[in-house]
């Protein structure tokens, strides 16, 4: 498929062959490598840092061939999400006859610009490259005020890495599983390292809902596959696995454009601070700031808590076995290279 079709024939891009490719893939993490690419480009692609090629931050301009490889990688790894509006749902705290309660409410409509979002969560294999490349030692990737905290982001053997790892590596056999046991800061550092970022709450919701939502209304689907929950479509409590699954599992839960496991398997860190509205008499006591998490996980008990609209939150330094993340970057202003020759 020509790279130009991403913009000229978007539907053909959304129906890219990534789904059929996924079937052929083994339980290993997807490997991205272009042996014929220039060495520096090959490294960036292997490390999934191709966003640095199409969205260079430091004024560097890459040649057409490099861009071609970058777009090929983006086609493989990421889905295009056209801009549009989403209705954000939330809750407010108030006193009711049952005591303090959270009451659901509509927060409002949010406009989202077009973006590219990872088709699957960042895997242990992906994150290992970040660890091996010294991501935890690169001060440019971490906010200054948490540098001492970064020293505590260690694995079970006190080496830098996710909480569940040992000796700087994931457990053997879990390479194709989403990385978990990472704080919001670690997710951000990784995203920055790859030239991407975490999606905002509205962006995540748009990615999950746009392809099944009616274009002339703001009615959104409850799940990436439709409105009815099915335990065979997402790794939640109801599916009975009770542990993290590979990114290749639960393909029936994909969005029509091939974004996997937005609901279930692991919660996903969101680049949005968790704000809880409350009536006047109610005060929230938060010692640490919280960020939103979306989508639910393998241990989420109620599927009504894992819809495309529902949200939860955790503290920025929480390193839990059921929270991972995926990355995105803005599509605004990007021009596909001319590959007609």
């Amino acid at each position, binding site marked *: 498929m020509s790279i130009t079709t991403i913009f000229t024939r978007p539907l053909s891009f959304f129906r890219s062959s990534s789904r059929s490719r996924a079937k052929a893939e083994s339980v290993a993490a997807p490997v991205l490598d272009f042996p014929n690419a220039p060495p520096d480009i090959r490294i960036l692609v292997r490390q999934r840092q191709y966003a640095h090629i199409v969205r260079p931050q430091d004024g560097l301009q890459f040649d057409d061939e490099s861009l071609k490889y970058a777009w090929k990688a983006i086609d493989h790894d990421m889905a295009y999400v056209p801009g549009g509006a989403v209705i954000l749902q939330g809750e407010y705290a108030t006193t009711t006859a049952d005591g303090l309660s*959270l009451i659901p409410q509509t927060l409002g409509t949010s406009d989202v610009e077009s973006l590219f979002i990872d088709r699957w969560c960042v895997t242990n294999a992906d994150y290992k490259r970040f660890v091996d490349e010294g991501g935890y030692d690169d001060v440019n990737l971490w906010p200054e005020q948490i540098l001492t905290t970064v020293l505590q982001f260690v694995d079970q053997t006190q080496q830098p890495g996710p909480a569940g790892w040992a000796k700087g590596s994931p457990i053997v056999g879990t390479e194709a599983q989403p990385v978990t046991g990472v704080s919001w800061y670690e997710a951000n550092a990784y995203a920055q390292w790859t030239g991407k970022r975490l999606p905002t709450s509205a962006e995540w919701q748009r990615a999950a809902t746009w392809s099944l939502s009616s274009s002339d209304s703001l009615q959104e689907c409850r799940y990436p596959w439709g409105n009815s929950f099915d335990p065979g479509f997402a790794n939640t409590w109801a599916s009975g696995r009770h542990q993290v699954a590979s990114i290749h599992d639960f393909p029936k839960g994909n969005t029509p454009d091939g974004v996997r496991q937005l609901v279930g398997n692991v919660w996903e860190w969101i680049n949005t601070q968790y704000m809880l509205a409350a009536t006047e008499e109610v005060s929230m006591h938060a010692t640490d700031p919280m960020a939103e998490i979306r989508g639910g996980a393998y241990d989420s008990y109620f599927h009504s808590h894992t819809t495309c609209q529902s949200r939860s939150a955790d503290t920025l330094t929480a390193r839990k076995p059921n929270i991972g993340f995926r990355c995105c970057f803005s599509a605004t202003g990007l021009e596909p290279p001319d590959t007609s020759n």
Partner: protein
Amino acid sequence: MTTETYDPQSTDEIILCVCCNAQMDASDDFCEVCHTPAEITRSIAKRNVCPHFISVVGPSNAGKTVYLGLLLDVLCGGARFLKGVPNGAFSLRLQEQVVAALEDRRFPEKTPNESDLWKWLHCVVTDSSKRKVKQVDFVAPDFAGEAIAMELEHPGTYPAVSHIVERTAAFLLLCDSIEVRDNGAREDLFAMKLGSYISQQQGLSHLDKSQDLTPAVAVVFTKSDTCPEAEANPKRFMENNMPRFTDYCEQNFPRHEVFSASVVGSSVLMSNSSGAMSRLPLHIQPRGVIEPLHWAIQNS
């Protein structure tokens, strides 16, 4: 042509209260002595089996109602080795109350102190973890923590508590992890008092030591989502924070084990104008709910 007629329960039927053995008429709603609901007694009588009392006990606010309600719901959904079928609609009341509240992201109302308002459950639990499948009639009331405390102070105040404790084969003793961490001595002494009460009610001091007839005791540190120390190593957490009760268990309950459990994945702490603090769950992810019951069934 014959017409089938509804055969109402014979009104002169006399049954014995499952809790205290007092005689009950078919028209009674509650046992006059201990206030156990007649429906639980009838439910067990219909099964014609010996009930297996597993009691969830602990101080007020330890999370007994949430634990018991969610435990029942998990059993109904079928855990890995345990499958539960509630015997009678009354058994679903507690489950319904807890599940509805948690799905709405709040905790259920506090259990009232009046024993005739307690919800009971009778659930037929099948344990298929071993080659020989085991089936028990799991019977448990949702005790109010205040009632337990009152009964410990003034034995006989709550006959339902004393009779059930006397007949219980396994106890799930719930302790709030944070309370234990922050007010260890108080919680430790309460657990000691409860342990001592159990020993007294079951007459353990008079037992022939050559035969182990002591109940199984599972100590469960609840709300461990807010206490990583309890979640990581509950046994060590107990040794460090409840040394008296640890020692008491070693001496008096040969079959005891320590667990941690939680139902909340993430929560926010709120207070209202009167300063009353309350934790509201943001999402529900049960951890370690089924394991204490499984252990209790296997060890009692």
